[in-house]
């Protein structure tokens, strides 16, 4: 029973760690499926983390904070869109610029607003997303096996976690079962064909980049207002890049993205419990190895050892109608 409870706690931690990765991964999925590579996920998450915490702290309402976070992330998305769609700039360079911009800007503004050295004050009460206790969680808790599973693992997360998981089937439906999704995918494979059909390539790509901005905004807000109670400089700590790795690992597919980010989240959770690994496999595994695994696995996938990851064909190339 103890082992079972430990497993539940481990999975609970997995869910918390996977949620920002999942949101950022899906954000990248929309953008890249439409042919716009986005390595600025990290920067957008960071900017959203700051603005959601800052505005939540100023207004006392976490929902206003969330809106501000999404707004900040959308603004950076618009920048990426203007640079790479309208002006046909290099998408990778624009993404890198966004990362640097966010890293510097957040600390600068935080220092100017709060004078706490690039931090926001600690959020209290309504300025923070609290965990939601699902109906019957307390009643079911004494039930063996299912009780702890429901009360500990499924119940008790913040609303953003449930939103993130609901986004997976929605994304699948939107991309693979609607006209908008078909066009969005087509614009990442063969924009000329979409253009010939009389659909605006630029419009579709902007739409994809905007969706990416919204999702990154939620991911950032989750970091600073749900997992933490405030912003600390560079708090996204490379999660945007791990999300990109997960996106490649998931071969640009929504359901695979869920499994990939859960797997990477599990690595993160295991890293905090070396004793569990030792008990399970009888070997002392260095936490560093688990931290590096997401990247290692991505390299293996990219090298084509396990299946093959083929990016959208028109990815990274600005669309030029006529020369």
């Amino acid at each position, binding site marked *: 029973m103890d082992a079972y409870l*430990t497993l539940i*706690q481990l999975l609970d*931690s997995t869910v*918390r*760690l996977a949620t*920002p990765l999942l949101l950022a991964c899906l954000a990248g999925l929309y953008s890249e499926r439409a042919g716009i590579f986005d390595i600025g996920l990290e920067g957008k998450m960071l900017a959203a983390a700051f603005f959601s915490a800052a505005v939540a702290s100023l207004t006392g309402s976490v929902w206003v904070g969330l809106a501000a976070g999404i707004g900040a992330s959308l603004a950076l998305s618009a920048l990426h869109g203007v640079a790479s769609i309208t002006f046909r700039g290099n998408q990778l360079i624009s993404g890198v610029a966004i990362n640097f911009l966010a890293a510097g800007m957040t*600390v600068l503004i935080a*220092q100017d607003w709060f004078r*706490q*050295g*690039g*931090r926001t004050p*600690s959020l209290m009460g309504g300025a923070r997303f609290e965990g939601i206790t699902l109906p019957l969680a307390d009643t079911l808790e004494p039930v063996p096996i299912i009780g702890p599973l429901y009360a500990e693992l499924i119940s008790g997360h913040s609303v953003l976690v449930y939103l993130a998981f609901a986004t997976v089937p929605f994304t699948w439906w939107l991309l693979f079962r609607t006209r908008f999704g078909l066009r969005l995918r087509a614009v990442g494979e063969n924009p000329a064909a979409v253009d010939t059909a009389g659909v605006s390539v630029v419009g579709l790509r902007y739409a994809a980049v905007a969706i990416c901005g919204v999702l990154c905004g939620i991911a950032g807000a989750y*970091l600073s207002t749900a*997992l*933490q*109670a*405030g912003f*600390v*400089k*560079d*708090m996204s*700590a*490379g999660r945007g890049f791990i999300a990109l790795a997960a996106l490649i690992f998931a071969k640009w597919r929504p359901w695979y993205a869920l499994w990939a980010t859960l797997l990477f989240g599990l690595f*993160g*959770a295991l890293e*905090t*419990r*070396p*004793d569990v690994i030792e008990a399970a496999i009888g070997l002392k595994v260095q*936490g*560093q190895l688990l*931290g590096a695994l997401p990247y290692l696995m991505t390299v293996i996938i990219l090298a084509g050892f396990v299946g093959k990851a083929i990016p959208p064909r028109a990815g990274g190339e600005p669309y030029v109608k006529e020369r």
Partner: protein
Amino acid sequence: MTFMSKMLGAAAAAALSAGAALAEPALIFDLGGKFDKSFNEAAFNGAQRWAEETGGTFLEIELQSEAQREQALRRFAEAGANPIVTMGFAMADPLSSVAPDYPDTKFAVVDVNWLDLPNVRQVSFAEHEGSYLAGMMAAMATKTGTVGFVGGMDVPLIRHFGCGYAQGVKAVNPDAKIVANMTGTTPAAWNDPVKGSEITKAQISQGADVVYAAAGGTGVGVLQTAADEGILSIGVDSNQNYLHPGQVLTSMLKRVDVAVYEAMKAGEDLETGTVVTLGLAEDGVGVAMDEYNADLVTDEMKAAVAEARQKIIDGEIEVVSYYANDSCPALSF
């Protein structure tokens, strides 16, 4: 023409007076940033105190990446700053290559004690002694007999903290269990409060009810989660008791501010080529007692800590340093 020569004259006079004026000291912060509420902030407070007392000004830079270390050192040295005070063990290598090029400039470095350079003053702290006292308090405060340690980047310095802490815990309760985790192996581990929170939750699920964070900005997440989950935490470097009043047992103080203040005060007369170690005897390290943790600290704890402090100073208790043989008698990492 007259205007021109006046300008030149003024410029020459300015240059002369600049040369005659005392050189400004410079302060280079480590990657955690000036306001990490911890190590670097303590340095800033020391410099600030010097500036207020003397009316002087100092140059400063917050490093953003590893590559800037040497660059910043050279820039300040070229600008004539003297002394140049630098923070953190990672400055050791850049200093070894830059300091010999500027023999007339004096450098001070905190947390380094293994260099052999005539114009560098090395200041290190006996963190294991202060952590030992924090460990004693943790062991006396715990109800479950399990305490936690969350390190930042996995470097010998942080193991040094953890090792002293573990010895303190074991001194009070030899059967106590210590759960130790490091946040990561890259500098990002100093600024990852989300991971700090997860580690704290993992330690709580293993029974820990007092957690010591020696992890820079990551520690903010550790202290927050400890407060949210209703367990006690121990802060580090600066006094962090006020962050969550009544929920931070104490803070292991490392008086970096004193080291920086004294270096700046000495100015160009700074004694270099020496290694200074500040321990309990010099009040370089210690545990913070103030109104925010007054309700948590029992008289018994105070007495035990005071007694142990005196015994360490007198040499009756020997706290083994992790550096001594790169291993810890009380804890395996």
